[in-house]
């Protein structure tokens, strides 16, 4: 079905016609009664609008191009935005006095900002920035934007200077040598750089823009929750996690535990290998008979296993399986060695007695 079929009209560039057709069709497939039909119709409607806008744009552009020659110079003079019933606002917002006030405040603010930023003691102190709220100029979008650019430019300068220091110098510099992320994040609530990425790119280039955005990327959801609890009046708020949340949490904990498990595996295997190395070492130096070295190694591994079973620690049990295999494999040899060890001991004991 074509776009126009869905709307049940002939192809048209008239936005009004499209809208009317859509409104008419909509009565037959209301979103709450016929969701699928509605989706189809709505998609057709949007597409038709897009086509119409695109064509109209093209047409008007070509006609504008041809008209260009005749444009009357007088029209290029800045006209006041528009005359509406809201003259009260226009009087204040567009007026010369208002613009003058903004200019004056801008000079004033940039001076204070430079001072606050220059001083390492004040630049990261949030309360020092409160002067920004003193006048309602900060609420003016253009004023706010320009001042924001001024601030971030200076912050970038300070932080980049620091980055360019040698390692040695960096280490011995003061804690407030840079403008900290918290400060930038706080200032972002005033200047809203996050929402003006294109602007930042235009003025500061990609590298610095990324730097700014990285500083802003922290967002703590808990803050909302804390403020929700704080704003409840009366009563006593009790935090109670439901069982299902616990379950969900248990799943993610299990995932973390898996990571932990790996660490423990490395740990126990590490011990096993150390013990083995130790016994080989003693063997080489022939200080202890080989039987004793080997069998005591297995004995230690066996004890670890035993401990695992008795205290029912699943980590030890899980992670010891390679060593248990080893133990099983060497068990016959182990027993044999054990017997030898017994003999050895008795011989040693004999020797001991003999020496006495």
């Amino acid at each position: 079905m074509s776009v126009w079929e869905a709307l049940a009209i002939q192809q048209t560039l008239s936005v009004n016609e499209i809208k009317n057709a859509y409104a008419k069709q909509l009565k037959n497939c209301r979103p709450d009664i016929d969701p699928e039909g509605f989706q189809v119709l709505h998609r057709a409607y949007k597409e038709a609008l897009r086509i119409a806008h695109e064509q109209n744009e093209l047409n008007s552009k070509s006609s504008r191009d041809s008209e260009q020659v005749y444009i009357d110079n007088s029209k290029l003079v800045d006209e006041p935005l528009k005359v509406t019933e809201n003259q009260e606002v226009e009087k204040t917002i567009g007026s010369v006095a208002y613009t003058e006030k903004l200019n004056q405040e801008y000079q004033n603010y940039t001076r204070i900002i430079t001072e606050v930023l220059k001083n390492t003691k004040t630049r990261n102190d949030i309360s020092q920035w409160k002067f920004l709220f003193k006048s309602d100029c900060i609420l003016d979008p253009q004023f706010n934007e320009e001042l924001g650019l001024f601030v971030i430019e200076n912050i970038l300068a300070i932080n980049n200077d620091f980055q360019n220091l040698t390692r040695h110098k960096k280490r011995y510099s003061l804690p407030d040598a840079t403008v900290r992320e918290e400060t930038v994040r706080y200032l972002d609530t005033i200047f809203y750089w996050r929402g003006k990425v294109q602007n930042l790119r235009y003025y500061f280039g990609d590298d610095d823009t990324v730097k700014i955005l990285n500083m802003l990327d922290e967002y703590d959801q808990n803050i909302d929750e804390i403020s929700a609890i704080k704003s409840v009046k009366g009563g006593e708020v009790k935090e109670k996690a439901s069982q299902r949340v616990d379950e969900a949490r248990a799943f993610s904990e299990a995932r973390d535990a898996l990571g932990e498990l790996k660490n423990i595996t490395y740990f126990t295997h590490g011990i096993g290998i150390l013990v083995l190395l130790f016994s080989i070492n003693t063997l080489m130096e022939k200080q202890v008979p080989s039987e004793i070295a080997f069998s005591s190694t297995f004995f230690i591994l066996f004890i670890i296993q035993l401990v695992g079973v008795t205290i029912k620690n699943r980590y030890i049990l899980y992670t010891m399986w390679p060593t248990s295999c080893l133990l099983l494999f060497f068990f016959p040899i182990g027993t044999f060695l054990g017997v030898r060890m017994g003999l050895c001991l008795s011989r040693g004991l004999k020797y001991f007695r003999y020496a006495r």
Partner: protein
Amino acid sequence: MAIIGIDLGTTNSTCCAWKGNELLKIPNALNSFLTPSVVGIDDHKTIIVGQTAKERLLTHPDKTVAVFKRLMGSDHKVKIASNSYSAPELSSIIIRSLIEDAETHLDEKVTEAVISVPAYFNENQRAATKLAGELAGVRVRRLINEPTAAAMAYGLNRRQEGTFLILDMGGGTFDVSILEYFSGVMEVHASSGDNFLGGEDFVQAMIDDALVKLNLRKEELTSKENHLLYLQMESLKNRIDQVDRETLQIQVGDEFVDFKVSQQWFSTTITPLLLRVRTPIQMALNDAGMHAQQIDEIILAGGATRLRQFRSMVAKIFGRLPFCDIDPDTVVGIGAGIQAGLLEKNRALDDIVLTDVCPYTLGIEVVDENGKPGQFLPIIERNSIVPVSIERRVYTTQNDQKFLMIKVYQGENRLVEKNVFLGFVNVPVPKSKAGIESVRVRYSYDMNGLLVVDVTVESTGKIFNKVIENAPGMLSDAEKQSSLKKLEKLKFHPRDDQKNAQLIAKGDRLYTSSLGEVRNQIAMAISNFERVLEKQNKVQIERAQKEFSDYLEELDKEGHF
């Protein structure tokens, strides 16, 4: 059998119905259209709602609670008197009292309701609102977004076509919606908002600043003193335009400290909050693909938009004054009432169709190419028109993987941990090589802004859909039943006695907040009034009510509380 429209606000709730060919605003037992969203328990263990409970916040902070809408969709409970209640339970108490008002006024049974929610409420918060309705014993036919409701009220009132931007700042939430009205179609283009910005935050900012300047901490004040300070600031905020300079006397222990306030101080204090208004406006404009100049009219709803500072901020952004000729407190309720009428297929409304959008991106958690978990895969993009249904396929990532865990999230960050968790389902899949087994995840988002997730295992064809039941703050059927039982047992304060109860509660509050000679006078007036009540003579009571109420009103104005 009637359907009513309910505006369940952070600070105030209202209720409207469509009857015959017109909209009826429904007054409560105290004959007011606004019922404060406050719930309390009185000394006889009966439930009190609204203005009476609000008065008792100062005198009985442990038995009363307000501003609980912000806890919707979380697992927190609030203890009042000796019982704990969840936010949906508390809301259901408010809804129940509104329904009672409607039944008395309409003289018929109310079985269904349309409830308004902030457009920027997430899934958990919406589900909690629906639950609140069910706990109050009505079927929730529709959740309607607050700014959309406001726009309906305006659209119907003026029948003017064009593109509107609605700013709704109430007690606790701020919403922005852009919508277009033409030939009986009301189409929402985009919604955005801030769930933690409203009148209450302005008051909190004032309190915080005052405490800092006075070198005090909140914990150093008793709960009574804290609340007194709150009342002082709230009242100051609402009459700030008439204030030039003034000295507040703030009670700290047995002493009073002076605190100088002025309009300048107020503006400075709330400016950081006002600045937060820009973000959602910008987002909504971007998502709708529009410029500020393309908006024909800016419409205000919600009590906090009465602030001159707010209006001038809006004027600065758009270069013109916003529009507000319907009472901002009830405009959302009116819209909800219209929606209720639409659902009843009322003739007068037959020619209106409403389409809305989903304000958040909805998706699932996936692993990225490097095997790093915690990545967010969007399924429904924000501001898609609803109802909408979209499917995506996800694959196993490990050899012999036995389960595929589908975790549902909502939000705009690329990492799931920074988005809102909505629920999960663990789907068993046949063992196979990594990337062979797959499941289809279908997200369907309906007109209420409620999400349904269906997970189909490709190779076995099995379908799983118990996902959202696992969300935080949601109840299983058994839990719902027990909650219903608990709420059913509650006794409500008798309706015909509410006026008297409210007057006495107000008297108590004024007594607590004043001192010396005035105090004795108030005590005297209260006990006189109580004596008249005991006599149970209707005529006398009415006269005494009037006198007592006038007297208290007078005091209230003088005391600025």
